[in-house]
């Protein structure tokens, strides 16, 4: 087993898993995790949920406590931004001019928020939401009775809206497209979330074109193209993320909507693997190359990358899954719905607090959005992983047990 130095660039979900999996896989050499934030790798999903709502302390977000890394002989090099990967000399260069030599390198650089070039974007009280620090700053602007405008009706925007309602704030969500979650769900799921958020007191405006953020030093309002001005003590912009590929690109690695990796998480340099949000990889279950923004992908691909570095080639072939918690709604998604041509519903989307939407391409089940229906999520996850076939008519009939719909 290698006694080389394994250096992991990035310190989030993929990095934490890579470090732990390298040790579990018998990596004998030094392991370093280099990240620009000051705290050890932490769970990001709660940032827009329990952490924003004040229900969790930052200590509770850590993926593993600092002591774990120490015990495992994993060096955490925190507060350090990597500015260059020098492949010729096999070292990374840090922002302070220092450098760290590597035998093997893992890029787990993640993604960063997509920014909007709106007039007023640099006013105080205008935020993006990606890091712990972002939420700490947002929280200094939250409070009962205050007004928040959220730009973007995707998962981050809607989760943020739900958390801010919990904090007693008045919340408006602006979505540029005709419906919330339009890029990622069927109309029935969008309709369901719009209804719930309205019932919970959120004001949703679709087809919204933001013209400017207004205010003195601090934001006070959001002006729309139709002339409407919405009061805002705080604005959170959640309009997607972009992969952090600059280091890879500058180092001459293949990059195409993400760092291009093979099924073993190898980049175009045999000494460098990559994992997580930053990668463009092949998914054999759907026969497509894609980039995924998810904890599941970060964790599972990191395991593949660690295996590869330990000399154990095992192709990455996991079913993607996701979750989103808003209010009392637990959304669990198994599979990838992109390219669907029909949707089968189980339960009612226009009343109540839970149903499932099953996505099909022809007679092939692609994915499920299961809202407060964990059993249906678990069933589909199993079916898509093991290749069970499905009877769509039985799926739609709630009097038939979900398991009877699969064979």
């Amino acid at each position, binding site marked *: 087993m290698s006694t080389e130095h394994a250096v992991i660039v990035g310190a989030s979900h993929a990095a934490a898993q890579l470090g732990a999996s390298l040790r579990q896989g018998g990596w004998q050499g030094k392991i370093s995790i280099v990240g620009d934030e000051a705290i050890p790798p932490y769970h990001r999903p*709660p940032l827009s949920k329990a952490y924003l709502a004040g229900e969790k302390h930052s200590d509770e977000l850590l993926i593993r406590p600092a002591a774990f890394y120490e015990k495992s002989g994993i060096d955490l090099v925190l507060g350090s931004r990597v500015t260059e990967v020098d492949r010729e000399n096999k070292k990374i260069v840090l922002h302070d001019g220092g450098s760290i030599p590597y035998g093997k390198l893992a890029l787990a650089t993640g993604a960063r928020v997509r920014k909007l070039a709106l007039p007023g974007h640099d006013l105080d009280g205008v935020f993006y939401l990606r890091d712990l620090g972002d939420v700490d700053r947002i929280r200094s602007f939250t409070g009962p009775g205050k007004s928040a405008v959220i730009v973007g009706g995707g998962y981050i925007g809607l989760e943020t809206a739900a958390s801010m309602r919990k904090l007693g704030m008045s919340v408006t969500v602006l979505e540029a497209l005709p419906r919330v979650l339009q890029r990622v769900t069927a109309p029935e799921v969008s309709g369901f979330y719009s209804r719930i958020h309205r019932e919970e007191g959120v004001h949703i405006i679709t087809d919204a074109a933001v013209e400017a953020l207004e205010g003195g030093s601090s934001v006070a309002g959001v002006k729309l193209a139709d002339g409407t001005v919405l009061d805002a003590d705080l604005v959170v912009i959640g309009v997607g993320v972009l992969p952090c590929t600059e280091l890879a690109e500058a180092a001459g690695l293949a990059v195409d909507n993400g760092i291009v990796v093979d099924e073993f998480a190898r980049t175009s340099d045999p000494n460098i693997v990559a994992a997580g949000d930053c990668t463009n990889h092949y998914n054999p279950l759907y026969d497509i190359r894609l980039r995924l923004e998810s904890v599941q992908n970060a964790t599972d691909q990191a395991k593949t990358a660690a295996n590869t570095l330990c000399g154990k080639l095992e192709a990455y072939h996991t079913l993607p899954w996701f979750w989103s918690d808003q209010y009392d709604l637990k959304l669990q998604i198994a599979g990838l719905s992109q390219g669907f041509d029909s949707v089968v519903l189980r339960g009612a989307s226009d009343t109540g607090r839970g149903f499932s939407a099953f996505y099909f391409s022809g007679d092939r089940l692609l994915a499920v959005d299961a809202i407060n229906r964990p059993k249906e999520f*678990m069933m589909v996850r199993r079916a898509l992983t093991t290749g069970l076939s499905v009877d769509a008519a039985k799926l739609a009939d709630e009097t038939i047990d979900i398991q009877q719909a699969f064979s």
Partner: protein
Amino acid sequence: MPSVKFISHSGVESEVHVASGTTVMHAAVDNGVSGILADCGGACSCATCHCFVDEAWLAKVGEPDDVEAQMLDFVLDPQPNSRLSCQITVSDELDGLVIMLPESQI
């Protein structure tokens, strides 16, 4: 601090001490006990922290709620004493808790 004893599928025992209020899932993950994946970090969304509660502790640990029970139906090798370890909170009352780990989470 209360202790939790984990017994792996192959019979390896590890005893850890954690503060009251820690979940059994965190007790394992934080101390590098393998066999618990906990991909979702404790949101009761992934069912990769499945464990078996030692029979002697079942009554004290209590029953899963409806969401957890539905997920447990679909873990590998579900048993009457199956639980998701992210949903069990360690307390002084559970000092000495014994948890068995499954062969595989997925």
